[in-house]
């Protein structure tokens, strides 16, 4: 089995993953072809091999996790149809992007995969796993990807995923000199009959034609690009409006709870509570809410717990640029500790973590690393969803990437990340 994905689709998945504040998942759309290769060997005059080729044409990102399944891994067909709509028939697999995890399917992913195989009616549904790791100082990052076909036997589950590209530009194929030939007949024949290929200016007709094709294609690319640009701006605008509304709702809710509490305190003076964070101005209250938000149940933060957008945080920095406030600026230095097993909310570290963004930060205790080895795979998602501000990057990542040659040995991986499939 061979598989391929276009570079643009691959980059698009990376882009959506980079934008998500947690794990990211979606569906792979494309087709499966069967290619027959005929070969001749000493023992057989012709032996044909049927090669299954999985071609990923594009992807359908899910806006959030748990959008078509619940915490028990039960897939909801209705939600699935809502996400896929008429693209359902083109689904050939699905993908998941995780940070700092092992290169194997989690238990939940396996049970979801089984259900998807049945519901979508694709017997050889594939699963593409992206895992993202970084060095401790965040200067080097690696995105690893493996394509699984879990419905096959245990031993042949991984498939090489190739990215077709331009390859050889073959400019060396131009000939700068002709093969020497003194035959007059040769010169005469090729001149006479070869003239068909050229127009009156001596330019090859084919070249003009292919150039026209190229021109038309490029024009189309430009025009669709223009449409995409417009749609991106519209999407941005509506997203902004939605975010504003969410913020307003949060503020309104907090106001009402404040009023209710004040009313209660007024009625029962002996039950007076100590002043809480909500007496602070809204932005810092929101920031500290994000920092301390570690719910006991793995609940995805609802719209009310909307973390501040990166741009908001940075504008907060620019406003308070010269006054030497340490906690906001360190947040701006590390806007996306995403590679560190956190959900990637810009953690403002009012705890004064003092994480340095300089070229040689202090190495961190690899406490996270041991937990990950033993934990149930399910919890890795919660770790990535929920903010735990005290998290520091695993030391193993340094071992993984510093000075490592491009070709890896399985042992190297295994020693760092535990068991491999």
């Amino acid at each position, binding site marked *: 089995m061979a598989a391929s994905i276009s570079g643009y689709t691959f980059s698009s998945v990376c882009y959506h993953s980079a934008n998500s504040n947690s794990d990211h998942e979606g569906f792979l759309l494309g087709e499966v072809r069967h290619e027959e290769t005929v070969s001749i060997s000493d023992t057989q005059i012709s032996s044909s091999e049927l090669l299954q080729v999985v071609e990923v044409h594009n992807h359908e990102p899910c806006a959030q996790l748990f959008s078509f399944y619940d915490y028990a891994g039960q897939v909801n067909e209705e939600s699935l149809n809502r996400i896929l709509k008429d693209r359902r028939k083109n689904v050939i697999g699905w993908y998941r992007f995780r940070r700092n995890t092992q290169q194997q399917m989690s238990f939940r992913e396996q049970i979801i995969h089984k259900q998807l195989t049945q519901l979508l009616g694709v017997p050889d549904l594939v699963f593409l796993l992206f895992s993202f790791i970084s060095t401790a100082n965040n200067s080097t990052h690696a995105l690893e990807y493996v394509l699984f076909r879990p419905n096959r036997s245990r031993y042949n589950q991984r498939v090489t995923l190739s990215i077709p590209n331009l390859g050889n530009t073959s400019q060396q194929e131009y000939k700068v*000199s002709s093969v020497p030939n003194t035959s007059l007949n040769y010169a005469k024949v090729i001149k006479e009959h070869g003239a068909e290929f050229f127009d009156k200016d001596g330019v090859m007709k084919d070249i003009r034609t292919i150039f026209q094709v190229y021109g038309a294609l490029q024009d189309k690319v430009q025009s669709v690009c223009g449409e995409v640009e417009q749609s991106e701006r519209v999407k941005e605008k509506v997203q902004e409006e939605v975010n504003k509304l969410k913020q307003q709702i949060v503020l309104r809710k907090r106001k009402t709870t404040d009023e209710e509490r004040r009313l209660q305190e007024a009625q029962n003076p002996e039950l007076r509570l100590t002043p809480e964070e909500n007496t602070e101005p809204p932005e810092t209250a929101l920031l500290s809410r994000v920092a301390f938000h570690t719910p006991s149940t793995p609940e995805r933060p609802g719209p009310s717990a909307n973390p501040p957008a990166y741009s908001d945080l940075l504008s907060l920095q620019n406003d308070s640029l010269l006054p030497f406030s340490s906690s906001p600026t360190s947040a701006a230095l590390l806007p996306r500790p995403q590679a560190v097993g956190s959900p990637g909310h810009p953690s403002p570290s009012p705890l004064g973590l003092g994480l340095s963004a300089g070229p040689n930060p202090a190495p961190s205790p690899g406490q996270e690393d041991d937990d990950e080895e033993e934990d149930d795979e399910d919890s890795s998602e919660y770790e990535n969803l929920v903010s735990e501000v005290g998290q520091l990057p695993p030391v193993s990542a340094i071992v993984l990437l510093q000075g490592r040659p491009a070709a890896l040995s399985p042992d190297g991986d295994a020693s760092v990340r535990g068991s491999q499939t």
Partner: protein
Amino acid sequence: MAVSAVHLESDAFLVCMNHALSTEKEEVMGLCIGEVNILLSKSPGLFTQVDTNRIVHIHSVIILRGSDKRKDRVEISPEQLSSAATEADYRLADMTGRPMRVVGWYHSHPHITVWPSHVDVRTQAMYQMMDQGFVGLIFSCFIEDKNTKTGRVLYTCFQSVQAQKGSEYERIEIPIHVVPHEAIGKVCLESAVELPRILCQEEQDTYRKIHSLTHLDPITKIHNGSVFTKNLCSQMSAVSGSLLQWLEDCLEQNRKSIIELQLEKERLTQELATM
């Protein structure tokens, strides 16, 4: 003043990835456009110390033509740098409303380790002579571990410093973070669609030189013309075609997202009204 960190907007990151994955046979390169933010912070302690942190913020990239077709060398010609600087000044500044400039360069390492070679480090040192804050990014792609069938794409950020002994340079690692940017910026989209144009331009220039050779017989001319046609076809299917498909998919995804966002907006408006 060394660079403390690099923030790369995710849409610029997207363009870099597109470019790096466009060919596995040679190194591609481009320039990073953005701005430098200097943040002052007070370090805690008895004696107040002001830390100056220089953050390089990359908003977009410009795809460049390879000036040296040799596989292991990437150098940007002064003309390319100059015209990119001009473009950054006028076009990009207009769009973002803030002055932008060339803040770094990136190139790809297909099938090679992500670490910069000696040539890369020396090239980077040269750029740093004209701009201390100039940063270098490298994208390593088309790496595969045959045993585990794991593919890998890596990226790193570095600058150069003079080595302690001798006159050689060595690299220093600069933290780099990909910063989320929910929509793809206009500048990034325009940079992305430049790639087929640049490839075609390169092919045309090469062919023009060949075509000007008058001593070639018709068969050789036909051969060369066919090579041009073949190469252009290859570019159209591998690059332009895939690019067009991706753009159409983006459009479709955006249409759906906009509808869903409109619905959510209505729902939230109603919720707010009832509060």
